[in-house]
């Protein structure tokens, strides 16, 4: 798949597919076709991340995500964040994904794509209808302090000091 001796050709191919994806998104979809329409840009970016990770990565994904945000009339960053997370997950599972045949690859990509859709939903929800106050995050601090107290107390209970002796 990878042809390192023809860098220009690879770039051209990547650019062509991304432009094709953008054009496909511009078709006037409606009704059921709109509901079922795949996110061509996302699939394109993830494919090239899998096969050309040195060329297509976080930066491209972020920019293409901004385009998708404009495309869907969403808040800027909503799809960009999801695409970046997608690139991370694909890079994380890259060696595993490359071993599989297309069917198993698709099956492995399903949870990734589901995660991304939820990321879009979550970011959009936070941006459009933010929850009242960020006070909901305060328990994180108190939980950490509680953890510290319990762990320290148990170590003292067992007769060990609070510091690790190396």
């Amino acid at each position, binding site marked *: 798949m990878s042809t390192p001796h023809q860098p220009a050709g690879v770039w051209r191919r990547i650019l062509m597919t991304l432009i094709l994806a*953008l*054009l496909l998104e*511009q*078709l*006037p*979809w*409606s*009704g059921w076709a*709109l509901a079922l*329409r795949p996110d061509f840009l996302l699939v394109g970016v993830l494919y090239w991340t899998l096969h050309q990770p040195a060329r297509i*990565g*976080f*930066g491209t*994904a*972020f920019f293409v*995500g*901004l*385009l998708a945000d*404009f*495309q*869907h*009339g*969403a*808040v*800027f*960053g*909503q799809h*960009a*964040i999801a695409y*970046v*997370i997608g*690139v*991370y997950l694909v*890079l*994380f599972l890259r060696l595993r994904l490359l071993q599989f045949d297309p069917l198993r690859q698709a099956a492995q990509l399903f949870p990734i794509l589901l995660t991304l859709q939820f990321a*879009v*939903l979550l*970011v*959009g*929800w*936070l*941006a*459009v*209808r933010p929850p009242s106050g960020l006070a909901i995050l305060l328990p994180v601090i108190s939980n950490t302090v509680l953890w510290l107290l319990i762990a320290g107390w148990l170590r003292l209970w067992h007769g060990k000091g609070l510091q690790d002796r190396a």
Partner: protein
Amino acid sequence: MATSDQLMFARRLGPTARLLIWLLIGVACVVADSRYHALDGLRDGFAALLRPLRETMRAPTDVAAELGGFFTRHRLLQNERDALLAERAQLAVGANGARQLARENAELRALLKLQARPGQQVVHAALLYQGHDWFAQRVTLDRGARDGLRDGLPVVDVSGLVGQLSRVYPESSEITLVSSPEQLTPVFVERTGQRGLAAGSGHGRVELRYMPTHADIRPGDRLLTSGIDRVYPAGIPVARVSRVTRPRSTPYLRVEGVPLAGLDRSRAVLVLVAEAPPAQAHTPEQPTQTHSSPAQTIPSQVTLP
């Protein structure tokens, strides 16, 4: 320990670090866009960039529609012509009536010293692209600020209210549809004149909010804009009531309606451009004329059709 030929640190950041950096940038984008509207310039840039693409990609469907129209059968055309002639005759009769009513209305308004409705001007626009957002149903039009469009203008098609302009670019604009969640439209029931608030419920439906349980409303009633908000002119059809239920849990009726406009069907729409921007509420003589408050003018407009 690292020997001399081994690198102590990787020269590139690991994927996790880069993910975190890009996530921070993404969050910054979201905040800058939703709180401070700082990225509108970028949006305009994308709009200018993508507009030719959208128009190009619409061409195949246009050509298909043209070809389909070309091969329409002769008989169908004849039928259509007959129907149109009949309709024109009917409309001519109706127009005469309307002219008479308009004159009568003008006289009545002069009597009541009410201000006439601001002149409406329409801009024809075509639907370019339907968005796919979780939180709002948006449609892109091919007209924008160059044609005199502004945020907040109402958009109608042949059969009713389509929505409201929510973002305007130089050459294109976005409508938020009537059925979009949280999109509110002040309406009244055509049969009884009772006013209410229609809210989009997603899934291409609207619901009428806060109707008391004793309200007289039945399936089949038409909802028209009341004009109470001075955004929509009065009397534009919005929806037809499809279901009325009385839930035990709330003191209000649950009224569902189907929008009359072809929200996902119609390709050509009209944008109603009011001549004066809606800043009339601050004119000095306004508070002295208690008769011209919007709520008072509605009943006279209800009887218009």
